[in-house]
C-alpha cells in the first residue's frame, strides 16, 4: 500500500497535539460501540452499510490517534485496531469524513455517552487538510473567499450595481423613493451580512430583508468590503483560513461602528461566526451578534412590523437547518415568525433539534465529487416533505434552499422553497 512521506504524516498528526483543552482526547477514547448513532445518520439510513455508521467514522480518526499517540498502538497496533496513516487510510478518511458526513450532529444528540461526533469528524477533516487532501471544489470556494473577499469572486463594482438595482426595485415595491439599501454607512444599529449567492444569483432574499428593514424603520447598512457570511474553512478545519475570515467581519464591524452584526439566513456561517468565531480568533466580541431569524422574531414581538397571515394561504412547513437548530438552539424563533406570517402551518416529523439534515450540509453542496451520494441520501428528506403535504418549505439557510431546490426537481415534489425573510416580506403590511 502506498506510503506517505514522513513530513506529510507529521503535518497530519499535528491535530492530536497542542490542543487547547482535553476535549479531543476524551472524545477519541470514549466510544463504547453501542451503535445507537447508526439510526440517526442519514447516510446509514439511505445506504445501510456498516462503514457509514457515525461510530465507524469516529473510530477511523481514533485508530490513527492510537497508532501514533498510545503505547499499545505503537507497540502492538494490530491488537488494538491502530491504523497506519498511509494512502489507503487517507483515501478511506477522505471518502467517509468528507464524502459521507454533513456534520449535521444528529448522531451527537443520540450518542449514549455524549461524544461530539461531528467535532471528531471535523478533526479528521483537519488532519486531511493539513496533509493537502481537502477536496478541490471545497478548497476552491475557500480560496475564492480569501482572494476576493467573497466565496463567489464578485467584484465590488458588480456588488454595488446589484444593490442599486435592488434599491430601485424596493422603492417601487414600497412606493417610496426614500427607501434605501444603505451601503458602508457608519454608526448604524445593524450591519447586515449576505451569502454571496444572493447578489450573484438569488437576490429575492436581499429585497425581502430590505423591505423588512424598511417596514421596521431600522438603522442598517451593508458593507461592500466584507459582507460574506459564509466560512467554508470551518468545514475543512483550517483554523488559519477560518481565522482570517472571522477577523474580516470582526474588523468591519469595528470599522463601521455598528452595534449589532446580523447574520443572513446561513446555518454554517452563523455557527462559524457567532458560536465558534470567538474561540477561533481567541477573543470575545464587543458587539452583539444575532441571526436574522432572531431579529425578525423580535420585530414581530415588539410590534415593529405587522403581518397579514391571510396573504399566504398555502400550507407551509419548516426545514430546520442543523447548524441553527441542533447546534445553535434556534428552534422557536422560526416557528413564531411563520405562525404569524401564514394561515396554515404544519410540522415535519421529526423537527427542531431532531430534524433530519437536507443532505447539503458540511460543505457537500460545494463538493461535486459526492454529488450522486448527496442526491441519494436526500430521498429521506423528500419523503419527509411529501408526508406533510406542504406546498411551501421555509428554511433559514441558503445552503438548505439550494439542496431542497435540487430535491424538489429530482424527486418531483412540486413545492416552493423560501427563506424566512421572503415569507415575511410577502406577508408584510406596509403603511
Amino acid at each position, binding site marked *: 500500500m502506498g506510503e506517505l512521506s514522513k513530513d506529510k504524516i507529521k503535518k497530519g498528526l499535528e491535530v492530536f497535539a497542542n490542543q487547547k483543552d482535553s476535549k479531543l482526547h476524551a472524545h477519541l477514547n470514549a466510544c463504547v460501540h453501542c451503535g445507537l448513532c447508526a439510526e440517526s445518520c442519514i447516510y446509514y439510513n439511505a445506504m445501510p452499510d456498516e462503514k457509514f455508521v457515525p461510530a465507524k467514522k469516529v473510530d477511523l480518526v481514533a485508530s490513527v490517534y492510537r497508532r501514533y499517540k498510545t503505547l499499545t498502538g505503537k507497540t502492538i497496533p494490530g491488537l488494538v485496531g491502530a491504523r497506519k496513516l498511509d494512502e489507503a487510510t487517507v483515501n478511506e478518511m477522505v471518502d467517509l469524513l468528507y464524502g459521507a458526513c454533513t456534520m449535521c450532529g444528529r448522531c451527537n444528540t443520540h450518542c449514549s455517552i455524549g461524544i461530539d461526533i461531528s467535532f471528531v469528524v471535523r478533526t479528521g477533516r483537519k488532519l486531511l487538510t493539513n496533509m493537502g487532501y481537502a477536496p478541490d*471544489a471545497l478548497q*476552491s*470556494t475557500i480560496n*475564492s473567499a480569501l482572494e476576493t473577499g467573497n*466565496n*463567489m*469572486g*464578485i467584484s465590488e463594482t*458588480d456588488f454595488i*450595481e*446589484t444593490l442599486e*438595482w435592488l434599491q430601485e426595485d424596493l422603492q417601487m415595491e414600497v412606493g417610496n423613493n426614500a427607501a434605501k439599501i444603505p451601503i458602508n454607512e457608519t454608526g448604524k444599529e445593524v450591519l447586515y451580512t449576505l*451569502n*454571496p*449567492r444572493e*447578489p*450573484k*444569483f*438569488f*437576490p*429575492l432574499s436581499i429585497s425581502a430583508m430590505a423591505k423588512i428593514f424598511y417596514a421596521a424603520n431600522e438603522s442598517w447598512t451593508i458593507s461592500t468590503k466584507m459582507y460574506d457570511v*459564509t466560512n467554508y474553512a470551518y468545514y475543512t478545519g483550517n483554523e488559519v483560513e477560518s481565522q482570517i475570515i472571522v477577523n474580516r467581519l470582526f474588523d468591519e464591524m469595528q470599522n463601521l461602528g455598528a452595534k449589532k452584526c446580523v447574520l443572513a439566513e*446561513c446555518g454554517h456561517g452563523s455557527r462559524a461566526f457567532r458560536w465558534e468565531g470567538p474561540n477561533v480568533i481567541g477573543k470575545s466580541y464587543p458587539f452583539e451578534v444575532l441571526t436574522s431569524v432572531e431579529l425578525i422574531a423580535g420585530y414581530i414581538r415588539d410590534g415593529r412590523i405587522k403581518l397579514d397571515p391571510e396573504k399566504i394561504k398555502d400550507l407551509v412547513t419548516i426545514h430546520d437547518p442543523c447548524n441553527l437548530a441542533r447546534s445553535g438552539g434556534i428552534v422557536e424563533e422560526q416557528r413564531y415568525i411563520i405562525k404569524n406570517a401564514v394561515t396554515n402551518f404544519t410540522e415535519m416529523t421529526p423537527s427542531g433539534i431532531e430534524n433530519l439534515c437536507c443532505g447539503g450540509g458540511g460543505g457537500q*453542496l*460545494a*463538493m*461535486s*465529487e*459526492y*454529488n*450522486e451520494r448527496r442526491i441519494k441520501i436526500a430521498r429521506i428528506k423528500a419523503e419527509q416533505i411529501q408526508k406533510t403535504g406542504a406546498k411551501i418549505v421555509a428554511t433559514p439557510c*441558503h*445552503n438548505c434552499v*439550494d439542496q431542497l*431546490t*435540487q430535491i*424538489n*426537481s429530482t424527486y418531483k415534489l412540486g413545492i416552493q422553497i423560501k427563506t424566512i425573510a421572503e415569507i415575511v416580506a410577502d406577508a408584510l403590511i406596509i403603511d
Partner: protein
Amino acid sequence: MATIQIENRTFEVDGDGFLASPNIWDKEVARLFAKYDGIDEMNEKHWAIINIIRSNYEEKGNAPMIRVICKETGLRLREVYELFPLGPARGACRVAGLPKPDGCV
C-alpha cells in the same frame, strides 16, 4: 470523470453534471442539457438567457450577475427562475456549458 447520455450522445461531466470541457459546447449541447433538466423546448427567452451567460463566460471567464442577465434580456427576476427551475447556476449556467460556480449553488 462521470458521463451522462442524452439522445445517444455521451458527455463527460463533473460530479454535478456540468460539462467537463466548456469549449465543446454548442447550441445542440444546450438543447440536450436543457432536455435532461426537463425543459423539452427551448424558447426565445431561454436562448436569451443562455446567450448572455455564454458571452459573459467567453469574455470574462465567469457567470454574469443575475442583474446583468435581467438587464440584458429584459426579463424579470422571477421569470428567470420559472424558465430554469434549478436556478441560474445549476440550471442556466449548466445548460450554457459553464463549469459549476463556487459557493452555495
